């Protein structure tokens, strides 16, 4: 794997670890299986980010924020993702506010923010998959 390809890729060990967390203990993942997922996720990030970027450009903003990502998901047909991510953002911002209040109250700069709870999108979306997402970028004719 050349340097360009490495820069473009997400670490396959991390991708693999996330895959393993959802699989039964006895299951294995082939190297090819990991690589396909790695490629697919990279494509997914580019796809969603591209859509968010277009929105920022039209609104003359330079900074992509969490709401733009949510909007892009919805715009591209990932409605169930957008809903779940919206709920995540709400909890994220609550946690941030609580952190600020807590820091002010105790004047303790070392308090760590508790991470927001993980999403349960896999369970929710499985029952609701209806709208296929549109074409990924870089599709050859």
């Amino acid at each position, binding site marked *: 794997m050349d340097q360009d390809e490495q*820069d*473009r890729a*997400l*670490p396959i060990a991390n*991708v693999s670890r*996330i*895959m393993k*967390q*959802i*699989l*039964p203990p006895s*299951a294995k*993942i*082939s190297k*090819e*299986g990991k*690589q*396909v*997922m790695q*490629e*697919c*996720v990279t*494509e*997914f*990030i*580019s796809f*969603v*980010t*591209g859509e*968010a*970027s277009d929105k*920022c*450009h039209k609104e003359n903003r*330079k*900074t*992509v*924020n*969490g709401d*733009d*990502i949510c909007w892009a*998901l919805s715009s591209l047909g990932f409605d169930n*993702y957008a809903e*779940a*991510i919206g709920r*995540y*953002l709400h909890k*994220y911002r609550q946690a941030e506010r609580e952190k600020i209040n807590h820091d002010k109250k105790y004047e303790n700069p070392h308090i*760590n923010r*508790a*991470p927001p709870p*993980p*999403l349960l*999108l*896999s369970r929710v979306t*499985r029952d609701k*998959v209806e709208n*296929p*997402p549109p074409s*990924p970028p*870089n599709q050859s004719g």
Partner: protein
Amino acid sequence: MEDSIGGSSSNDNNIIKEQDRLLPIANVGRLMKQILPQNAKISKEAKETMQECVSEFISFVTSEASEKCRKERRKTVNGDDICWALATLGFDDYAEPMRRKSRTKIQEASTNQNDLC
């Protein structure tokens, strides 16, 4: 392994779990930057949102592939299972490019094998 000591250990465990649960934010951020105009910026919130979303995507697709393997009594999830899961879940346009990439990689591997012989 259980650790019943106080909050600090609990925090450490949470940090470890967080790191294990998500892809590294630096890599996610870098991939996002590659698709954006040069003067664009990405908020920390956006990167963390994308981290969360991508992990869910991996879990979602892997879960579907796993179910297929279970029904066919196979223990190893392979590239075809991932492609099948993408198509089943409605990501058809992802599945086809992935199949082409898989075939290309297999051909490259074969070529390398031939070179070695």
